[in-house]
C-alpha cells in the first residue's frame, strides 16, 4: 500500500552527478521519517524531488496517492506542507498573510504565531525580520497545512531547524510529534539530535535505516474558516509598485523620448498609431514585475508547488498598459477606446511572453546571467501587425 509520501524508484540527476539511483521511500500516516547524513549526500534532493521541484529520470513521486511528478514529465499539485532549505519567502510578503496563503484557508493565525513568538510581527513585512524569525515563517508555512487538517497531510521539511534557537527547535520537535499523532506524514532532513529523537525512522542516507518507538503526542486541530485565494502577485505589486517602477517608468520614458523628438500634432496614419502603442510595448518588454521579486530566497520554488502559473500581476499590467496608451492617445489624437484596449492587451500579452521566457531559465544555477532579452525581438512583429491593423 502506498504511503502518504511516496518516492518510487526515483533516479535524479543534479549538475553532473546522479544523486538518486532508483531510490525509494515511503512515509506512512502518523510517521516521522528523518533523513540524516553528511552535507551534499542528497537529502535536499529527496525533499525537492518528493515535492515535484526536480525532474525525474526514472520513477515517480506521489503525495496522498496523487501524482506529484513522474519521469514522463507529468505533474500534479496535491495539497502538502513544504519548507525548503532556502526560506522561500519574498521580503515584501507580510507574516500573517504568508501563513494564511500557505494554509489556503482563513484561521486564527494570531494564535499560531503567538506559540512561536511571532504574534507581534503579524503585520510586518518579512524583510523586517531577523534571519531566525524569517526561518520560523518559512517553517510555519510548511507546517500549517497539516495543523488545520483532519485528514492526513504530507509535510516535507528540509533542515527546518537551521537558524532556529534552542527553544524553537524544541517547539518544532514537539510540534512534529503532535502532528504525527494527528495522522500526518512527515519527511524531514536534519542533523539535529532533537529532531532525530522524535523520529519513528531515521535513514542515514542513502540506505542505513533505524526504527524507533516514540511516545505519542497530542494533536490539536486548528479550526479553519473559508477557503482563501492567494493572489500574492497582485498584492505584492500593489504593495511594492514594482510594475509601476519597472514597466511603467519604461513606458513613460518611451513616451517622453518620442515627445522630445516628434510633434504629436503632426503625426498621422501608421506613425500616429505606432506612437500611441509604443509605450505599452516597452512596458511589456520589461517582463513580469513579480518574477524579479520571486527570485528572492527562491520563493518561486515554493510557490510553484502551489500553482502551475507563475505568480504575476496581469490585471495590473492590463491597467498599466491601458493607462500608458490612454496617455499617449490623449496627447495626440484624443480618446480612442480601440487603441487603449489594444494597448492594454498587447502590453500585457508581451509581458506574459517575456515572463514565460524568464521563467524557463529558473533551473539554471545563475538565471540572472542569461540574456533573455535576445529572444524578444520577435515581439516586434505582433506589435507591428496590430499597429497596421488598427490604422487600416
Amino acid at each position: 500500500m502506498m504511503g502518504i509520501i511516496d518516492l518510487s524508484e526515483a533516479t535524479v540527476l543534479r549538475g553532473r552527478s546522479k544523486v538518486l539511483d532508483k531510490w525509494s521511500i515511503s512515509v506512512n500516516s502518523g510517521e516521522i521519517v528523518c533523513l540524516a547524513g553528511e552535507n551534499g549526500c542528497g537529502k535536499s534532493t529527496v525533499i525537492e524531488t518528493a515535492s515535484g521541484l526536480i525532474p525525474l529520470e526514472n520513477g515517480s513521486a506521489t503525495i496522498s496517492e496523487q501524482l506529484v511528478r513522474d519521469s514522463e514529465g507529468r505533474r500534479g499539485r496535491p495539497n502538502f506542507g513544504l519548507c525548503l532549505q532556502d526560506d522561500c519567502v519574498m521580503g515584501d510578503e507580510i507574516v500573517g498573510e504568508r501563513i494564511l496563503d500557505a494554509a489556503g484557508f482563513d484561521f486564527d493565525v494570531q494564535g499560531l504565531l503567538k506559540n512561536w513568538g511571532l504574534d507581534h510581527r503579524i503585520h510586518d513585512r518579512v524583510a523586517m525580520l531577523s534571519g531566525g524569525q524569517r526561518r520560523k515563517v518559512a517553517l510555519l508555512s510548511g507546517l500549517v497545512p497539516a495543523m488545520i487538517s483532519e485528514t492526513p497531510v504530507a509535510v516535507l521539511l528540509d533542515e527546518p531547524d537551521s537558524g532556529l534557537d534552542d527553544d524553537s527547535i524544541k517547539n518544532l520537535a514537539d510540534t512534529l510529534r503532535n502532528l504525527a499523532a494527528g495522522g500526518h506524514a512527515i519527511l524531514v532532513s536534519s542533523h539535529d539530535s532533537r529532531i532525530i529523537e522524535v523520529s519513528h525512522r531515521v535513514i542515514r542516507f542513502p540506505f542505513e535505516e533505524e526504527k524507533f518507538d516514540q511516545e505519542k503526542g497530542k494533536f490539536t486541530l486548528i479550526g479553519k474558516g473559508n477557503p482563501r485565494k492567494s493572489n500574492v502577485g497582485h498584492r505584492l505589486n500593489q504593495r511594492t509598485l514594482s510594475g509601476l517602477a519597472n514597466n511603467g517608468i519604461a513606458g513613460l520614458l518611451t513616451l517622453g523620448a518620442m515627445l522630445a523628438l516628434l510633434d504629436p500634432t503632426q503625426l498621422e496614419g501608421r506613425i500616429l498609431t505606432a506612437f500611441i502603442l509604443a509605450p505599452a510595448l516597452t512596458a511589456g518588454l520589461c517582463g513580469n514585475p513579480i518574477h524579479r521579486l520571486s527570485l528572492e530566497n527562491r520563493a518561486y520554488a515554493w510557490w510553484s508547488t502551489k500553482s502551475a502559473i507563475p505568480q504575476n500581476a496581469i490585471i495590473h499590467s492590463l491597467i498599466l498598459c491601458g493607462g500608458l496608451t490612454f496617455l499617449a492617445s490623449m496627447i495626440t489624437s484624443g480618446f480612442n477606446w480601440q487603441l487603449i484596449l489594444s494597448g492594454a492587451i498587447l502590453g500585457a500579452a508581451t509581458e506574459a511572453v517575456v515572463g514565460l521566457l524568464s521563467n524557463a531559465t529558473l533551473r539554471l544555477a545563475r538565471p540572472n546571467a542569461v540574456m533573455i532579452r535576445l529572444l524578444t525581438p520577435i515581439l516586434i512583429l505582433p506589435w507591428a501587425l496590430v499597429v497596421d491593423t488598427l490604422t487600416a
Partner: protein
Amino acid sequence: MSAMRASDMNIKGEVVAMLGFAGAAVTLWLGMMWAPSVSISAFKAPDAQRIFYWHVPSAWAAMIAFGLLFIGSIYWFFKRSDWAWRLHVASSEAGLATGLMCVWSGCIWGAAEWGVPWDWTDVRLNTFAILTLLSLYLVMGRRSQPDGVETRDTFAAFGMFGFALVPLTYIATRLWQIRHPGPVVATSEGSLNSDMSIVLFLGAISFTTLTVGYVMAGMRLTKLEMRLEELQGQYEERMK
C-alpha cells in the same frame, strides 16, 4: 593515467574546416573576378549583387547548422545523449557565425538593392535573424552557467522551442506581406547564368564543408572539456 595533449589529438574537424576555407576563398575570388556581371535593368546595384556568392552559401550553411541544433537539442532532451549535447553546443556556435554572416550580408545587400536594410516581408531574413539571436542567446547563456543537467535541459528546451518561432515568423511576415504587397526582390530565384551557378555551387559546397568541419571540431573540443572535468573530479577525490 595517460596524459593528453590537444595537439596530439585527432584533428579531422579542423582539417575539414581548412578545406572549406580554401573553397570559400576560391569562391570569393571567382565571385569578384570571374563571375559575370548582372544587367543594370535587373538589379538596382549590380556591383553589390556579388554579395550573393557568400550570402546564399552562408544561408545554406546556417540552415544546416540550425537543423543540427534542433536535432542535438531534441536528442539531449529526450534521450540524454552526451553526443547530442556536444552537437547542440557546436551547432549553436556554427549557427551564430553563419547566421550572422547571412543576416549581415542580407542587410547590406538590402540597403544597396532595396534602399533599406530590413524588410519585414522577407520571411527568410526575419527567420534567420530570429534563429541567429537564438544561437547568440544559447552561446552566451551556456558560457555563464556551470555544466550540468539543469543547464543542458534549459538550453536544449530553448533550442527546440526556438524552432516554433520559424512557423510563427512565417505566418507573421506573410500577414505583413498580404497587407503590403510590394515588388518581390529577385534574389537567388529565377534563372541563373551557368557561370554564376558554378560559383554559387562551389560556395555552397565550401560553406557546407566549413560548417561541418567546425561542428566536428567543436564537438571534439566539448568532449575533451567533459573528459577534463571528469579527470579533475577524480584528481580532487584522490586528494581527499
